[in-house]
């Protein structure tokens, strides 16, 4: 079907062009308009089918029986715990990845050293590897029988089946976003302004805070939003590392899955809606932030 659609799209300007001298002059115009609306319909339809309809269904099913069951589900201690645990993990892993991501972006874009391409490749690795594999790898490295297991046990540090491991897993799967969003902005920014700052007497640190960071802030903000969204929703790696202990190491996504499997659909849907709302809030916050500060610099 897709091949026939693209075929007719490719043909239509040519046929319209041929017909133009004989028929009315508005014909090619109409063809252009038809194509424009056609493309929009396909794009919106695709979005509706894949995203809007399923998300809307979740909302509908959650509030189907009114607010009382939703309130009960939300106020349940295990749900509360999952919610706060998810936020705690985000609150630790996102700042870590932001600092790391900016540093990496600077290193990859401004640095001159051998093996840079390898570092660029390594940064993307978390995107390429399945989160489940990352989770397993963490267990192998930091678990009881793992490579660092003995040393960690001797020092009384528990990584696997507890919060440090979950933060670690979340940080790894959302690692590339800030660096990847910042690098192109950094490239576009160029080095002229930084050099100007240095001739004006600014130290490296002053130049970073006053010139570089404000110049790349949109890339960083966007990276942080993507990192946050990814960290909030992470399931696979955290699922393995956490051990999924209800009320202890259960994050919101894990909670949703557990409830769904135990036929507590209201609990599952409610938690899913909370997750979706958190994601929306992140996006809206970014939008407001971007709009306000952009107005500052332009107007």
């Amino acid at each position, binding site marked *: 079907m897709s091949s026939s659609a693209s075929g007719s799209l490719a043909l239509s300007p040519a046929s319209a062009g041929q017909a133009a001298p004989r028929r009315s002059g508005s014909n090619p115009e109409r063809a252009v308009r038809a194509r424009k609306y056609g493309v929009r319909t396909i794009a919106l339809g695709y979005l509706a089918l894949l995203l809007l309809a399923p998300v809307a269904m979740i909302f509908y099913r959650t509030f189907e029986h009114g607010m009382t069951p939703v309130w009960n589900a939300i106020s349940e201690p295990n749900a509360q715990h999952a919610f706060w645990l998810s936020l705690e993990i985000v609150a630790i892993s996102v700042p870590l990845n932001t600092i790391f991501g900016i540093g990496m972006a600077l290193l990859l874009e401004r640095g001159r050293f051998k093996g840079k391409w390898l570092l660029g490749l390594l940064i993307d690795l978390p995107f390429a590897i399945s989160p489940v594999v990352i989770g397993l790898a963490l267990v192998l490295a930091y678990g009881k029988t793992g490579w660092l297991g003995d040393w960690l046990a001797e020092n009384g540090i528990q990584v696997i089946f507890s919060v440090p491991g979950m933060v670690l897993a979340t940080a790894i799967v959302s690692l590339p976003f800030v660096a990847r969003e910042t690098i192109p902005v950094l490239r576009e920014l160029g080095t002229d302004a930084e050099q100007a700052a240095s001739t004006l007497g600014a130290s490296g640190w002053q130049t970073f805070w006053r010139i570089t960071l404000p110049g790349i802030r949109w890339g960083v903000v966007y990276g942080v939003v993507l990192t946050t969204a990814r960290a909030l929703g992470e399931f696979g790696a955290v699922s393995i590392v956490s051990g999924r202990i209800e009320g202890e190491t259960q994050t919101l996504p894990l909670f949703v899955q557990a409830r769904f499997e135990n036929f507590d659909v209201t609990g599952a849907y409610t938690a899913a809606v909370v997750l979706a709302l958190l994601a929306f809030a992140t996006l809206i916050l970014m939008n407001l932030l971007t709009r306000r500060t952009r107005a500052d*610099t332009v107007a």
Partner: protein
Amino acid sequence: MAIEARNVSKHFGDFAALDDVSVTVADGALMALLGPSGSGKSTLLRIIAGLESPDTGDVVIGGDSVTDTPARKRGVGFVFQHYAPFKHMTVFNNVAFGLSVRKRPKAEIEGRVKELLGLVRLDGLAERYPSQLSGGQLQRMALARALAVQPKVLLLDEPFGALDAQVRGELREWLRRLHEEIHVTTIFVTHDQEEAMEVAEQIVVMNAGKIEQTGTPRELYESPSNEFVMSFIGPVNRIGDAFVRPHDVQILAGDDGSGIEALIKRVVHLGFEVRVELTLPDGREIWAQVTRDEAQELELREGQILTVRLPQPRVFAA
């Protein structure tokens, strides 16, 4: 303060951007580094500023070697080709930047910035952002920003390159006057010989990483030391190995036997100046620069055959 570059060389990979270059700029002078693109003039300027480090050689400012001093401690004002504005800061904060990283008191900064904005005629624009300024205004903001920290020397990289012709003319004149006013040792880089001659007291002509000649505009024009300088500074006719300035080509009223025949191919009126394009008997083409009055007196027309004299064509040893 005087600036000196001693035996400076710089390579980018296999490309020799600068090959054993030495330049001296006297205290308070206004000097142009003139050359075609790729001649090494910008690299030399950046090395003086500390934005590049030379492979070999020394940079001396005010008698002290600064070769190992980082850019931020050299006390150099640098104006970038595309001005390098801090886009997220107002004009005021751009100009104040150098003082504010030095943690000067607020009142002092405010006074100094105001004074500088007046000097560069941007008084009413302090609260604007760079995106709201024209090219000429950005240029002046960049200059004010560089001057704010009272640099020992001022370096400008193609300062008028990105501006349109009229603004460029105004700014040249203005830069000259500014220099007379503040007398800071200034070097600017340009590929435009007219600009160099109009603004600078001294010109260093560079080509392919080397210095071809140093001198006043007049010295370079009247006694160029080689072919390159002769053809780079001012218009030139090349006849075999010899060079003749178009205004030295004399169009004779009658034939007294001392000249050669030429056919007028085209007469171009440029206002006061008239450009006469000529074909010589051997097929070579040259042009002569005459005044409007001369052209009128000689009744020059296209297709006319007349006599020209080429006094003292210059020949350079290869």
